[in-house]
Each structure stands twice: as structure tokens, then as C-alpha cells.
């Protein structure tokens, strides 16, 4: 168990290091460079100035050398300055991180509240009309583009009925709890609608898988009530794969929901990454992507460890 965790931890560190290089190289391939941006805002710069500035900032250096310098600074906690936010990139990440965690956390909780009962209901009566209806709903949920269903919710609840705001986090002059909740409602609904299908299907498949096993037959043969078989024997075992999926989704808390956040102008991590990439804010994009990647990989690691801890059949691979 310990050696398993250690090995997975080492693997994750290697992948994180490799990904930091890949992301660094990709950001370098985006249009323009910092000096071009300076040139755009200051027409008095001469080409000699440009060459001098590029040498000063090391932009004329080969990729590996630049990466090494950046990685050394990053490890000491210096991720550079955000161009759009005019403050250190790390400081610019704090508020969006909190907002994404709130949005994703709420959506995630609501998704589970909707999905798990649906999956259980479907599994209780396989091939029944209810099962087929739930299957259809799951299929729709998986196939819906989040930005379109969000747009439809805006169309109905904001543009037509005028009940809810179409975007942002607070009204002008607002900021109370109710105001914030109203702004969260449509994005949370959007993410729940496109998210519940996957979880419900997992729950259904997990439960059906368990229901076919010998110990369930034994429990029934001993005369246990169907209620006790379900709650005491089946559900407890069926929840294992669901726990893994839940743990896997934790990375999303830190990377946000890019399309949904952008649609609703919700200033979380997803929108920040989008704005930073489109706005040539290299340092901010790099820091945000790196953070999102690290947190996703760590949550995967956590899922792996949780799975091994819950399921006694897995000792060491």
C-alpha cells in the first residue's frame, strides 16, 4: 500500500514536471511576445531598443534555457506579473480560485443529489419504463453542449421572464447573500444538467453489477428483506466506483468550467484562463494552467489512493 502510494506520487511529480515544460513551450507558441506588446503601447521604441529589451528579458535565449530560468523562479514562488491584472500572477489567481471552487462545489453537490437517486431508481427496476426514461435523460445530459443549455436558460429565465440575471456575480450596488445566490443559480443549473447523466449511469451500472453477485443472493437466501439487501449489502459496495469518480472530479474545483463561466461572465478560473490566453497575459495563463493541471493530477492521485483504501481487494499492483 505505502509503496503503491509512493510510486504513484513519484509518477505524478514526473508528469507535473513534464507538463510544466509542455505548457511553458505552448504558451511560448502563442502569438506575439511581451516585447511586441510593449512596442504596441509605445511607438517611440526603436528596433535597437527592442533588441536590447529582448536580450535583457532573455527572450532571445533558447527554449530550454528560458524554461530552466522560469522553473527556478516558479519553484521559489515567483510566477511573474500579470499583464491584465497588474499584480503578481499568484495574487491574481486567489479570488477566481475561490469563485470557481464555490461554483463547481455547489454544482457538484447538486449533481450528486440529482444523479445518485436516479441511478439507484433505474437499477432497482432494470428494463422498466422508468429505467428507459432515466436512461434517455442521461443520454440527453451527456450529449448537451453546456454553453447551449446555458444560453437557453438565459433565454428563458433572464431574457424572457426576467427572473434571474444573465451573468456576472453581483448586481451593481448589490452584493448581499441573496444577490450572489441569484447570480449563481443559472450557472449551477447548467452544470448540473450537463453533469448528472454521467454520475447516474455510473451509479446504475455499479449497483447492477453488485446486484448480480453471489453475496447478494446469499443475503436474500438468508431471508433478508429487500430493503436490507439494498441498503445494507448492495449500496455499500456499489458506492466504491462512484467515490472514485467523485474524487476524480475534484480537479474541476480548481480549473473551473471554462465554457459555462465564459458564457455567464462568471469570473472564475475557467474564464481567467480564457481571458489570459486571448489577452496575451502569458504569466497569468501559465500560472493558472499549471495550477489547474497540478490540482487535477493530485485529485487523480487521491482518487487512486481512496479506491485502494476502500476496496480491500486491491492491495498492490
Amino acid at each position: 500500500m505505502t509503496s503503491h502510494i509512493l510510486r504513484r506520487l513519484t509518477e505524478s511529480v514526473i508528469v507535473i514536471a513534464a507538463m510544466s515544460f509542455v505548457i511553458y513551450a505552448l504558451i511560448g507558441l502563442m502569438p506575439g511576445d511581451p516585447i511586441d506588446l510593449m512596442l504596441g503601447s509605445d511607438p517611440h521604441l526603436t528596433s535597437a531598443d527592442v533588441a536590447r529589451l529582448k536580450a535583457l528579458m532573455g527572450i532571445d535565449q533558447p527554449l530550454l534555457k528560458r524554461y530552466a530560468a522560469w522553473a527556478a523562479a516558479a519553484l521559489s514562488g515567483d510566477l511573474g506579473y500579470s499583464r491584465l491584472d497588474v499584480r503578481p500572477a499568484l495574487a491574481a489567481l486567489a479570488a477566481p480560485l475561490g469563485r470557481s471552487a464555490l461554483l463547481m462545489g455547489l454544482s457538484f453537490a447538486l449533481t450528486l443529489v440529482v444523479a445518485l437517486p436516479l441511478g439507484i431508481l433505474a437499477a432497482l427496476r432494470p428494463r422498466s419504463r422508468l429505467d428507459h426514461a432515466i436512461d434517455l435523460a442521461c443520454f440527453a445530459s451527456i450529449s448537451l453542449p453546456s454553453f447551449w443549455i446555458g444560453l437557453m436558460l438565459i433565454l428563458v429565465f433572464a431574457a424572457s421572464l426576467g427572473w434571474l440575471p444573465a451573468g456576472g456575480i453581483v448586481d451593481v450596488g448589490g452584493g448581499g447573500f441573496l444577490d450572489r445566490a441569484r447570480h449563481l443559480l443559472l450557472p449551477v443549473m447548467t452544470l448540473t444538467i450537463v453533469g448528472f447523466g454521467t454520475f447516474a449511469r455510473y451509479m446504475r451500472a455499479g449497483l447492477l453489477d453488485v446486484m448480480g453477485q453471489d453475496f447478494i443472493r446469499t443475503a436474500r437466501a438468508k431471508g433478508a428483506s429487500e430493503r436490507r439487501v439494498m441498503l445494507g449489502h448492495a449500496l455499500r459496495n456499489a458506492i466504491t466506483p462512484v467515490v472514485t469518480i467523485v474524487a476524480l472530479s475534484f480537479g474541476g474545483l480548481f480549473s473551473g468550467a471554462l465554457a459555462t463561466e465564459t458564457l455567464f461572465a462568471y469570473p472564475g478560473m475557467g474564464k481567467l484562463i480564457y481571458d489570459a490566453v486571448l489577452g496575451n497575459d502569458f504569466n497569468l495563463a501559465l500560472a493558472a494552467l499549471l495550477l489547474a493541471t497540478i490540482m487535477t493530477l493530485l485529485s487523480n492521485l487521491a482518487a487512486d489512493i481512496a479506491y485502494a483504501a476502500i476496496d480491500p481487494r486491491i492491495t498492490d499492483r
Partner: protein
Amino acid sequence: MIALSPRGRLFARRYAQNRAAVASAWLLSALALAAFLSVPLQAVFGLGADTVDLHHRLAASSLAHPLGTDELGRDLLLRLLEGGRISLEVGIAGALAAAVLGTAIGLVAGYRGGLIDGLLMRATDAVIALPLLPLLIVLAAIDLRKLGVPPELARSEVASLYRIVALVALVGWTTVARIVRAATLSLKAQDYVRAAIGLGATPARIMLVHILPNLASPVIVATALSIGGVILQESVLSFLGLGIAPPLASWGAMLSGAQETITIAPMLAVYPGLLIFLVVVACNLVGDGLRDALDPRALQARPGA
């Protein structure tokens, strides 16, 4: 009627039993036919999906424009059809490209084993674990000129098509790679493959001639099942302005335009999304049907399905 082999007849009969899959196949065929026929038909009638008419912006439906016009006065029906053609092209090309890449990686990993296998599979795990959309955004924003692509090509609309296909392949190969690797591992141990090794066949020959043909069913199923996801990825990138470049039409890009005019012309926001949804559902149902028809064991293995 086309003459089918016994295996083909069995497949057709099994597929025909799945009514949802049959209906989806008809829906997709009808849409593809309309979308691809609209190009020559536009030429015949002197119409154009790109024809801007600023005097008739956001018009309601009429005889001239059955579904009305968009924010630049272009015919919405023609735009939708062109968007459909591009969605289907990107979906199929992207899924195929990802399948080719995944098959190559899975085949080498499974057949070679050892260190190569370990490295490739860790890479697969890593790609699966990454936050996809943020990385796709960066990949889509890359300046192709910095990669040595000639400027005029990098700016062309065709480049945006190829770029999307390449991006989708780059992040989508993992499922096929895993399936192919697992199948290769079991095929490698079969007697006929060992006989081929004993006869002195080269590894490349064994992989391509003896193993690859037997991977057809699982690869076809996985590829078909991935088309819907690819179409969703294309639409979200185009919605964010990083996918298909105008003047080419794309359902995703049409939706981002419709967001601005949602209070005056709500139907502009309804149609493209509805079509994305229908096509993705239909693709997934066809994929399901193919899986059940090609691999009856999968059907039995799914309790209650």
C-alpha cells in the same frame, strides 16, 4: 440490395433490432445528404451561405428565407446546413485521426511491452488526467507561424479546419490506445501469431498483417462512439472563437453570435444548439448500436441493458 456475407447479414439483423440506432442512422444520413447537397444547389440557384445582406438583418422567416436571416442578413437555413457539413466533417475526420494515432500507440505498446509499454501507458494516463478544455484553448491559440507554417496558409480558413482535427486527435487518442493495447496483448499470445513469429515474420508485419485486422471491431466501435464528443469539442471551441474561422459556418460560432442578439432574435440561439444536440445524440446512439451489433458479448455483459 447489396449482397452481404453471413457475418454481414448477422450484423445488419442485430443492428436493425435497435430502433433508436436505426432512426439515428436515418437522421444523420438525411442531414449529411442535405448538408452536402446544399453546396451544388446553392450554385444552381445563385444563393450563398456567405451572402451578406445588411438590408435584411435578423429577418423573420419568409419564402425567400425559410428560417429567416442572421445578424448579417445571411440565410439561416443555408448557414445551418453549412455548419452541419463542417460539424460532420470535423467529427468524422477528428475521430478517425484520433483512432489512427491511438491504434498506432496501442499496437506498439501492447506488442512491444516492457519499458515502451510502461512509458506509453503512463503518457496515456497523464493525457486522460489533464484539464482538457483549458489546454485545448491554449493549443487553439497557438500561432502556427511560430511552428514554421507559411503565414498565408496559417491565416486561411482551411487551416482552422485542419487545426481542429489535429487538436481533437491530440487529446482524443487515449481511449482507442487503451482498447487496442488490451486487445493486442491477448492476440499476441494466440497460436497463429506465435506461428507467424516462428516463421520469421518481422514485428512490423505481425502487427500490421496479423494483429491489426483483428482489431477492426473494437476500433470501429470506439471511433463511432467518439464522433459525438468530437463534435461537442469543435462546437465549444468555435463558440469561444477559437475553432472554425469565419466566413466558414459552424454551429458553435453561430451560437456565440446569437448570444448578442438573444433578446431580438431568440431563434438564432435555438436552432444551432438544437442541431448540435440532435447530432451528438444520434452519433452516440449509432455508436451504441454498432457496439451491440458487432460485439454481442458486450450486450450480455451489460446486465439489464
